[in-house]
């Protein structure tokens, strides 16, 4: 899985009312609140802030606002899948057009063209059933192993397209 530890910088704004002895804690808390769970550009999904690099930089007062801005450097654990990577995912929705699966925050779509042709879609049970082995079916909450074909990272969304068309991909027993 594509977990990485990266060093990132974030400008944290602090309200003047926090200018007291617990400023440091406030800073770190604000950083965590603002950063964790978001998608940051090419680095991917920030899972958690591991540590804030010391010493803390000096804040710069914003003119006219009274806010102080701290350019904090921190180490973060990020989740960043890559094209070609093989991931284990949980199926969230099975449709005629393919399977939607989830790996943590990442939504992956597996088109019906990327599903082996010996698996057919069954509308009634909303699942893909193997022609050969009837018990083998991909439905909601199944675990599948897939390869990521392409990734799209936006500020708001974090999606990928995948395939289970290769050897050793597909349903995980």
């Amino acid at each position, binding site marked *: 899985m594509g977990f990485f530890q990266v060093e990132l910088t974030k400008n944290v704004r602090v309200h003047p009312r926090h200018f007291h002895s617990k400023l440091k804690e406030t800073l770190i808390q604000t950083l965590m609140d603002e950063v964790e769970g978001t998608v940051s550009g090419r680095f991917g999904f920030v899972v958690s802030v591991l540590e804030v690099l010391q010493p803390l930089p000096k804040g710069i007062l914003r003119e006219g606002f009274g806010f102080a801005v701290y350019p904090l450097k921190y180490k973060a654990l990020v989740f960043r899948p890559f094209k*070609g990577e093989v991931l284990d995912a949980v199926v969230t929705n099975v449709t*005629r*057009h393919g399977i939607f699966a989830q790996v943590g925050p990442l939504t992956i*779509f597996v088109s019906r063209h990327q599903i082996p042709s010996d698996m057919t879609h069954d509308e009634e049970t*909303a699942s893909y059933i193997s022609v050969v082995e009837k018990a083998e079916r991909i439905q909601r909450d199944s675990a599948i192993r897939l390869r990521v*074909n*392409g990734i*799209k990272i936006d500020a708001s969304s974090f*999606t*990928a397209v995948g395939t289970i068309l290769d050897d050793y991909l597909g349903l995980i027993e």
Partner: protein
Amino acid sequence: MGLCSCLFPITRRHCSSGDKYLLESWLVKTGDQVRPLQVLAVVQGPLEEAKAWKDDREPQSRTEPLCIQTEKKETMELVNLASSNLDFSVILKEYLPSGKDRTSTTAGGQQNTNYWGLRLSEKVTGKVDALVVNQNHVIQPQQMVLSVDVCDHKVQFNGNCALCGIEMDIYSASPILESPREFSTRTDWTLSNKHHLNPAYTHPQLRVSRNELELVEGENTRRLLRRKKLSLVLDLDNTLIHATLVSHFPQEWYQYKQEIYQQATEKALECSAPLMEDIHELDLDGSISLVKLRPNVRRFLEKIHQRYELHIYTMGSRSYADAIATLLDPSGNLFQRRIVSRDDFVEGMMNRKSLRRIFPCDDSMVIIVDDREDVWMDHNQGEMVPNLIRAKPYLFFVQDVHENMNNHLVWDSTTTSIHPSSESHKESFANISTCMLTCLNWKENLESGCYFPYLPWVQKTVESDENYLGRLEQLLIQIHESFFKEMEQCHNVSQTDDSNHVKLPLRDVKLILAEMRHRVLRNCYLSFTGIFRLEESPEVSTVWRLAEEFGAICNKQVTSQTTHLIVDSQRGLHTGKTKYALRRGDIFLVTLEWLETSMQYYIRASELQFALFSTSLSHSYGNDLEEYRKVIEKRHEQFVQNGLCPQKSPSKPSVKRRKMEYSSSEEDNTSTWIDSSSQNNQTKYHQSDDKTSPYHKEQDDHLELEWTASYLASELERELMNDPLCLSGGGESS
């Protein structure tokens, strides 16, 4: 390194190839007609195709067949170029100044001196389908070398092609469907072939090309046919349920509930059952709403489920839709995931529903049941969606309880001000709750279940709704049967089909529905009075259009054929048409409600029930309206058979003579006048020419008008005294 080239007309857009693949993105516009140009990539003789394309488009675009060369010669056999990140360089003959040769190092000089490289920014990715020539083959100019199965990106997920995985933004290949406006005309519809659509029940970010969608939907259609099912799209609010926010009636509900619980002996609960059952509280994001299921709704769904695949399409939010669906269908079998809410589409048109969102390709097997037709209206064409059955709106809770309360206050004690203070409000609440309790106690004594305790927040009309879903069920089953009967007939004719391939329907539910509609008011000749405003022309009004859709024949004037006069219960009482119709005696005077009910139930409603002057009609025929209707129907059959209108209008002298009769009989017996007039009608039919409708004459005859007005006024007064219910019943519809 050898050069591998292939003839390959290429656009700025993505293109597909392989063999005989229709390029979606190339459309030729000639005049008004837009047609996709079939461009075969990598087949013999693409020059002609490309030339055809060139003639229709601007000449400066790259219309010449292009060559694709690849630098990775050795991995040419069936390599997935998408995954190997292979770049094609595209060579364009036209652009070849010999000096600016960038890829000459890679192009094997001796093999093909005619082609020089020029790297363009476009990338083509795809699978190499077949390699035609051997590695050491000398390639002639314009000779096919390999065929590349280029991904046409027909499925895209959030800007990624789901087939090859590349990001689509660079190409901006498929303009995403932004507004349904694009579907306004037929040409636009063809144009939209190149758009990618969002299939229902997936993900708002998923876009699928039209061809692909048609393929998948076609598969679904076949599945439904095999299972002998149609699709049914149901609305929630006011169709299956009625919901209201608890904040609309604050303490009252809780008071009522508390008291029920306090006094809840088994009996008390039992007797409040018919009204109070299936009222549920929903807590959605902090606001609590009360939901009343329409009577028999569960039974209805269960029954209909055997013949229809059920969908929900609501304008409510996702969480609301899901919550209601769980209420209606706790097992989750009926709807599964076929629920559309306003959150499911990016292009949010809040006040409109479109069938294309669920059935983008084929709506010939879909029935919609909704209480509102305006949301389904195609605003560009102003036409009703032909799949729609307009359901009778289900209203259970009074919308604005406070207003209702105030009204009651005013009603009860005239001394109370129009805007009661909060004190009096509370009092009234207390009063009502005690009133409810007494009602409930009273109820215990009543054996029959038809009595409803008076509750101020419940609509008075709920009782009349009991049967509607039953009728709807009947209707839907009828449609289903007629559809599949037709199907089977088709199937018997063409026995050649194998079991796997079920023929796509020739039959269309839209036509079945239209036929059924047309049968409802067949042989009814309608005329209206007091309903349309003077400035609007009645032919374009909704009522008129609907009536004709339901098989009635509308006319502005009351003619000799007219069977029904739709009278507005307030404005239409003293119009010339009403007077004439009254005097004729064989015209049903009905309220607009009659028309409405007929349309909702898909059956001709009883004229007796919605008659405006039921007493005057019953006078003449002794309550035997059925017989009366038969007379009319028989007459119309004759009309149809003769093809002409045999009925002649009575001549003017006869009218005057009748006037004498009326005035003499007026005092002692009101019923005789219609009798005599109808007798006159029958006898005088053939005396005058058919062009002069008595109605026209009447307008000119001031004397006569005066007389009828005064007569009618007295007649009306008498009727009001005798039968106030009749008129007030009509008044509700206005």
